[in-house]
């Protein structure tokens, strides 16, 4: 069991308010990702849940029990840090066993739990090494192993993959997702990378300036962004925004079209423009097109489409895929 409830949580450091007022329900067993640009308060929020920081005001409950004033050690949560935070003076075995030692578990239980965690995470051959003798990916796995042996109510991940190279990041992403499928424990995961958020989450919390912009499943966020910020933050390449006359045609202050929802034609389209750069990724081609009166628009087309620099092309949005926003940036 591991539901987490935040009620009117506020946090300020000195005079600076980082989180003005957040309420949030995380259901048991869900994989929830906090995502947002750096400085949006997502790590602070995680640390408040962990108990590493005091809330300035509000309430945090785990499994319905008020934990606001409880020390981190008593909250029965596990955390995986960005820096892994392994104990350098202990072997891999010592690291993984540490939480159980702290609760004075019997030795046989510790051994069994460590061996089990090691086999799940492919660390069996490394149990007697020190953290510094391991690669980045292995260290990450040790940190996860240390988190799972306690059978916590929930896992907290603080940007755990940002120190890994791109290929390893993809692999570890899959491993963490698999782990969640296997353990079915609540996971709260902080990242600034919207791809990680989209691929891993059951539900995403998009944060901006300490406020929740939207809370929903990845597809909800993609298909029905609540506002311009979420629309721009979720999806890659970014959504194209157009303001002014073109937007007014749709009865909105501004409109947005995702690159994948723009069809490119050699003839005239809804808009026409000049190709500035075309990026070939093999599977896709990104065209950056200068459109008069609308600025640069990015399109995503199939890989075999060949447009050259300087060519004039037409751009037409897919029917029903134009997002409309009012003057406050809220979806209409």
């Amino acid at each position, binding site marked *: 069991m591991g539901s987490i409830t935040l009620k009117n949580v506020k946090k300020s450091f000195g005079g600076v308010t980082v989180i003005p007022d957040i309420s949030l329900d995380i259901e048991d067993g869900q994989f929830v990702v906090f995502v947002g640009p750096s400085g949006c308060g997502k790590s602070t929020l995680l640390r408040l849940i962990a*108990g*590493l*920081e*005091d809330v300035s005001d509000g309430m945090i409950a785990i499994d319905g029990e008020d934990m606001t004033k409880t*020390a981190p050690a008593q909250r029965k949560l596990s955390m995986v840090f960005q820096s892994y935070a392994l104990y350098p003076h202990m072997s891999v075995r010592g690291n993984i066993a540490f939480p159980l030692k702290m609760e004075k578990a019997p030795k046989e239980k510790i051994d069994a739990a460590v061996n089990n965690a090691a086999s799940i995470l492919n660390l069996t051959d490394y149990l007697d090494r020190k953290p510094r003798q391991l690669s980045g990916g292995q260290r990450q796995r040790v940190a996860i192993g240390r988190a799972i042996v306690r059978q916590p109510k929930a896992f907290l991940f603080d940007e755990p993959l940002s120190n890994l190279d791109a290929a390893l990041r993809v692999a570890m992403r899959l491993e963490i997702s698999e782990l969640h499928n296997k353990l079915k424990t609540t996971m709260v995961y902080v990242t600034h990378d919207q791809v990680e958020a989209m691929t891993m989450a059951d539900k995403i919390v998009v944060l901006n300036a300490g406020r929740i912009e939207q809370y929903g499943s990845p597809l909800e966020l993609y298909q029905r962004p609540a506002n311009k910020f979420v629309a721009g933050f979720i999806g890659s390449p970014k959504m194209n925004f157009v303001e002014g006359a073109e937007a007014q045609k749709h009865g909105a202050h501004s409109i947005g079209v995702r690159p994948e929802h723009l069809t490119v034609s050699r003839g005239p389209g809804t808009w026409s423009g000049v190709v500035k750069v075309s990026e070939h990724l093999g599977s896709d081609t990104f065209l950056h097109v200068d459109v008069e009166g609308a600025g640069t628009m990015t399109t995503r087309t199939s890989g075999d489409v060949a447009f050259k620099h300087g060519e004039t092309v037409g751009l037409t949005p897919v029917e029903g895929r134009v997002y409309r926003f009012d003057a406050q940036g809220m979806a209409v």
Partner: protein
Amino acid sequence: MATAQTQTAARFMMAPAVLLLLAWMIIPLSMTLYFSFQRYNLLMPGMEYFTGFDNYRYFFANPNFWAALTNTLVLVGGVLAITLIGGTLLALLLDQPMFGQGIVRLLVIAPFFVMPTVSALVWKNMLMHPVNGFFAWLARVFGFQPIDWFAQFPMFSIIMIVAWQWLPFATLILLTALQSLDEEQREAAGMDGAGPLSLFFYIILPHIARALTVVMLIQTIFLLSIFAEILVTTNGGPGVATTNLTFLIYMQSLLQFDVGLASAGGIVAVILANIVAIFLLRIVGKNLEA
């Protein structure tokens, strides 16, 4: 990591250190300040009375004070000049590739670990003795009159001894600073056509400038209160030729038992040291933020 719990714990853990240091600083210092306004001699107990600034007036009027002040400045300045210049050159040399670098380093830093009374006695007797000393023998070998160091050049002799003790300190710290110089920066300067001299003045010297300042300030703090070396070699003499402020105050307090006068001198010494300390603290403080 700032929860109310940890901060309360932190305050309790700091309390002993802070309170002890506070007591250590405030109690004796305020006593010194109080005594400095008293006519107070240990040989005449019960005769203490308030004299205002008389002690300070006597202290400044005493020609020995000015001699001691000059001696202090000469001693500090002389040692600083030798150790900073020598230390830089030595650090540059030790930074070069050579055989047995580690051992040379050990040889060079060794004097720093010798207790002041030992180095003073060894130098005074075995090296600088006018008849049987090693230097006297060297002088004769090269056909010179041996020098009676402590009679002819008392201050210079003390400067030599103290510089010998502190040269390793300067060298070690400057060498550490030198070794943190980015090799690529040196190579880039080389590519830009810098010769050894311009390399030194434009790249190396600015890089070790801060270390040089730190060495200078720390040494100044310690050198202002040189005591043991004077006590065991010249006892401040001949006359007051090697009496520095510390030694003068020592004589007034523990030899002449004039607590009031010595205290006034102590306050003067504190003020002098504070002037240096302010600069040092500023540099260290800047580093704390980085």
